[in-house]
C-alpha cells in the first residue's frame, strides 16, 4: 500500500523548496483483565499521512486520513498555504535549512514477525496472573494488561529520500491495590504506567518477570500496608532503575530538549534552567554521571534508524563525566540554535508535526555493585518504582514519590517503608551523585506516554539505568 502512496505523492508533489510525506500505519491490540474479568478487548487501525512543505522561507504541514488522490491533493494545498502564510514571519528562515535526503530500511525486534501468541492464550495468561493476585481480602483491586502495537512508517521527500521503518511495541503491566482502614497502597510491576515496555515480542514478558508477578506484587502490596511511613530527614538515597528512569526523564531529559531551551514550550510544558551558553563546560552532575542519547539498543522502547525529519540516529553523549556536552535537539532546532544535537525530532503519529523529544535517554553503568552501595550507607532509604512526579517549568525544583522503600542502616538493608518521597533541585541534585551501579544493576525500561508540545503529543520514550546512590537528599513519608 505504501508503494502506491509513494507513486501518488511523487506525482502530486509541487515545485517547492522542500516537500515530504510521512505515512504512519499502525495496528494495535489492548487486552486487560481486572478482578478476573476480561475488560472489553480493543484493537486499532491507525492510518494517515502528513505532508510538510517548505517554500519561500515558510513551513506548513497538513495531516490527513484521506489517502486518496483528492485527499493528498487537498493536504498538499493546505500545507503550501501554511508555508506561504509563514514566509517572513517564522522563527527561522526555512529556506536556509538543509534537511538530509537519506534512504534506508529499519526493522526493530519482532517487527516483521507474525502476531504474538493467539489472543486466547494471551487472555489466559492475563487471567492467570489476575487470579493469582487475590491472596487476601485486603486486596481490593487488581488488574493485568498487555498492549501490542505494530507500526510501519515511511518517510519520503519529493527529491529522493525514502525511509521505511517497522516497529513492534510491547507493553505489559500489572497493578494491585490493598486497603486496610484508612490506608491504601498500590504496588505494580514496573510502575502504574508500564515501565517494562520494550520493542520486541513475547520475550518482553520474560524480561518483565510477568509470569508469577500477580502473587509477588500482591504480597508486596500487603507488606506495604503493614510497613511504617518513610522517615523524614536529610539522608542518602539509593534509587533503583524503576525510579531512576523517572529521575532521568524529568530532570535531565526535559531540561536538555533544545526546543524548550529555545522557548517553544514556554506556554505549556515550560522552559529550562539550561541555557545555550552552558554546553561544553557546565557541570551538570558529579564526575560519575554519564548520560547518552542511544537509539541503538534495538530492544529499547524508542530505538529507531531515523527520526521523523529523516536524520540518521546514532548514540551520542549528552553529559560526559558530569559535564554537559550537547542537547536533545533535531535538525531544525540545531539550525536555529547553531549547536550540534541529535536525531530526535519525533511525532507521536501522522497527525502531529515532529518536535524535539527524548527518544532513548540512558545513564551509562558505573563500577559499584548494589551490595557495595548499600554497605557505604550509614543511614538512608532505597526507593523503587515511581508513583508521583512533579517538577517546575524550568525543570529544577522537583518532588517525586515511590511505591516502595527500604531503610538502609549501618550498611545493611532493613525493613520496608511506605509512602517514600524525596525532593530536590536538578541543578544540585546530580552533583550529589555518590555512586553509579554496575552492569548487574542496569535495566532497560521505558515510558509509554511522555506529554509535550502544542498541540500536545504523547510519545514513547526509553530509559535505561543502573541503580544510583545520592547523598544528603531531603526524604520524607506520608502524614
Amino acid at each position, binding site marked *: 500500500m505504501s508503494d502506491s502512496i509513494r507513486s501518488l505523492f511523487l506525482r502530486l508533489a509541487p515545485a517547492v523548496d522542500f516537500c515530504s510525506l510521512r505515512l504512519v500505519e499502525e495496528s494495535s491490540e489492548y487486552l486487560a483483565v481486572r478482578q478476573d*474479568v476480561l475488560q*472489553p*478487548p*480493543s*484493537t*486499532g*487501525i*491507525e492510518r494517515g499521512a502528513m505532508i510538510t512543505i517548505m517554500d519561500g522561507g*515558510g*513551513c506548513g*504541514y*497538513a*495531516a*490527513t*486520513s*484521506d489517502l*486518496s488522490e483528492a*485527499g493528498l491533493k*487537498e*493536504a498538499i494545498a*493546505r*500545507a503550501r498555504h*501554511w508555508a506561504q*502564510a*509563514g514566509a517572513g*514571519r517564522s*522563527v527561522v528562515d526555512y529556506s536556509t535549512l538543509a534537511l538530509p535526503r537519506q534512504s534506508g530500511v529499519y526493522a526493530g525486534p519482532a517487527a516483521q514477525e507474525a502476531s504474538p501468541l493467539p*489472543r486466547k492464550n494471551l*487472555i489466559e495468561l492475563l487471567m492467570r496472573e489476575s487470579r493469582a493476585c487475590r491472596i487476601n481480602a485486603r486486596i*481490593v*483491586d487488581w488488574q493485568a494488561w498487555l498492549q501490542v502495537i505494530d507500526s510501519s512508517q515511511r518517510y519520503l521527500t519529493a527529491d529522493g529520500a525514502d525511509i521505511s521503518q517497522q516497529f513492534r511495541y510491547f507493553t505489559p503491566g500489572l497493578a494491585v*491495590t490493598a*486497603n486496610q482502614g*484508612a490506608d*491504601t497502597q498500590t504496588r505494580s510491576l514496573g510502575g502504574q504506567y508500564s515501565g517494562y515496555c520494550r520493542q520486541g515480542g513475547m520475550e518482553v514478558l520474560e524480561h518483565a518477570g510477568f509470569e508469577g508477578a500477580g502473587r509477588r506484587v500482591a504480597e508486596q502490596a500487603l507488606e506495604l500496608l503493614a510497613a511504617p511511613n518513610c522517615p523524614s530527614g536529610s539522608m542518602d538515597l539509593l534509587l533503583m532503575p524503576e525510579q531512576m528512569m523517572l529521575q532521568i526523564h524529568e530532570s535531565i531529559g526535559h531540561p536538555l530538549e533544545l526546543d524548550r531551551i*529555545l*522557548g*517553544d514550550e*514556554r*506556554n*505549556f510544558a*515550560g522552559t529550562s534552567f539550561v541555557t545555550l551558553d552552558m554546553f561544553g563546560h557546565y557541570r551538570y552532575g558529579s564526575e560519575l554521571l554519564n548520560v547518552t542519547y542511544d537509539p541503538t539498543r534495538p530492544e529499547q522502547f524508542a530505538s529507531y534508524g531515523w527520526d521523523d525529519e529523516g536524520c540518521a540516529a546514532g548514540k551520542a553523549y549528552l553529559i560526559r563525566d558530569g559535564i554537559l556536552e550537547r542537547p536533545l535537539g533535531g535538525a531544525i532546532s540545531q539550525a536555529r540554535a547553531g549547536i550540534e544535537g541529535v536525531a530526535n525530532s519525533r511525532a507521536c503519529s501522522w*497527525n*502531529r508535526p515532529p518536535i524535539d523529544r527524548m527518544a532513548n535517554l540512558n545513564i551509562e553503568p558505573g563500577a559499584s555493585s548494589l551490595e557495595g552501595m548499600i554497605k557505604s550507607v550509614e543511614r538512608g532509604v532505597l526507593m523503587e518504582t515511581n508513583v*508521583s512526579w*512533579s*517538577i*517546575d*517549568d*524550568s525543570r529544577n*525544583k522537583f*518532588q517525586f514519590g515511590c511505591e516502595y522503600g527500604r531503610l538502609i542502616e549501618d550498611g545493611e538493608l532493613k525493613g520496608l517503608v511506605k509512602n517514600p518521597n524525596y*525532593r530536590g*533541585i536538578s541543578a544540585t541534585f546530580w552533583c550529589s551523585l555518590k555512586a553509579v551501579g554496575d552492569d548487574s544493576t542496569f535495566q532497560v525500561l521505558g515510558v509509554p506516554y511522555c506529554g509535550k508540545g*502544542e*498541540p*500536545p*503529543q504523547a510519545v514513547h520514550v526509553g530509559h535505561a539505568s543502573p541503580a544510583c546512590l545520592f547523598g544528603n537528599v*531531603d526524604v520524607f513519608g506520608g*502524614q
Partner: protein
Amino acid sequence: MQDYFHRLASLLDGLLRGREQYKCWLAGEASDFVRFNRSAIRQAGHVRQFHLTLSLLDGLRHAKSTMTLSGRIEDDHPLLERTLSSLRAQLADLPEDPHLLIATQVQSSEHVAASCLPDSSAMIDEVLAAAQGHDLVGIFAAGPVYHGFANSLGQRNWHEKASFHLDWSLYGNGDKAVKSAYAGREWKGDEFRARLALAAERLALMKRDPISIAPGAYRAYLAPAALHEILGMLNWGGVSEKALRTRQSPLRRMREEGVQLHRAVSLTEAAAAGLAPAFQEDGFIKPDRVALFEQGRLAGSLVSPRTAKEYGIETNGADADEAMASLDLAPGDLPMAQALAALDTGIFIGNLWYANFSDRANCCLTGMTRFATFWVEKGEIKAPLNVMRFDDSLFRLLGDKLEGLTCERELLIGSESYGARCTRSALLPGALVSEFRFVL
C-alpha cells in the same frame, strides 16, 4: 459530516447477522493549528481526521475496534466490513462480560453550531500584528469538531461545534510571564487586542525585581486558573465511583469518614453548560448536572455504565474514565476586585503547575507556582515571586483554611488536545485561603 456518519451507521445496520448489535462512536475534526514563539510562527498546519470506534455485541460477548476513516464512504465501506468480520471472529474466543451495560432506551439528539469563523489566516494576521513588540508564545487552534454516536437500536446522536482557542503567554524577563487565553465561536479582533493589552499591563508588574520566600505557610489568593490545577486533580480518580469503591480515591475519607470541606464548596459536573457532547461513547445521555460536592459534603460521583453494572447502581452517563468534562464550582461572595485587599499580605497565585498527589489517602497535592504569581503586602502587589513548591491537602485548602470564593467566575477551555481537540471546560471562581503550605 453528519450525513456521512448516518450513512456509515446505515451500512453497519445492513452488515449485522442474527442477534448481533453494534454501537459506534465517531470523533472527527478539521483543525488549523498555529504555534507561536517570540511573536513569530513556529509551526503552522492543518489536521483532518476521523476515528470510529466500533463495538460488536453478541449477547454479553463484545469487542471493539478503533479505526481511522478517510471520510469518503466509498473508501471506508470495505474497512468497515473487514473490521466487523474481524470483531465477529474475536467474539467466539471471548467470555461473557458480566459488567456490560447497554443503552437500550433510544435517545437521539442533534446539536450543530456551524462555523462563523473567518479564515484562520486572517485571525493569525491579527495575532501577529498585535503581538509585535511583545514576546508572545502559544497555540492557536480553530475549526469544526465532530462527535457522533449510533447503535443498532436506531439511536443517533450528533454534536458539531466550530470554535477557536488561542492560548498564549506574554514573557518578560527570564521565566516571568503572564498567561492568557481567548476562545469562542466568533472571533472579535478588538476583544483579542484588549486581552493582549491587559496581559501586557500585568506583565509590567512581572518586570519588577522578583523575590524569593522561605518555605512555610502563607495567606494566598488562588486565581481561577490556579484553583483549576488543584480541582482538576480530582479527575485522577477523585470523583470516580470506581476509585471510591476500590478505596483509591483521594476523596475516600469524605465518603467513609465524613470529612467535609467548607460549606461554600459546591462542585458540579455541568454537562448542559459545557462544550463537550451531552452523550457518551456507549450512548448514554449525560444529565444536565451531577452534584459532586454540596455545601462541603461529598454528594455524588461520576458513574460510568461499566461501574454501574459492576456495583449494581445507576449510571449517570459518565465517560469510561469517570472524569469531569464540564467542571462547575459555585461562586462565593468575595468580589474579585477586592481579592487583593482581602488577601492583605500574602501570595497572589495566577497559575499552578504540574500538580500531583503526594499522599492520596489525605488528598495531599504537590505542585509549583507559575506565571503571574506575586508577593502582596497590605493589598498591594509588591513583586513577582520566584517559583515555589507547595504541598498541602485539599481537605485543608478548601476546608477550614478557605476564607472565601469570588463571586465572579472564569470559563477555562481545555487545551490538552492529545490526539484530538479537547472539549473539556471549567467554570470556577478564585479562592482566598488563610494558609497555603510551601515546602521548597
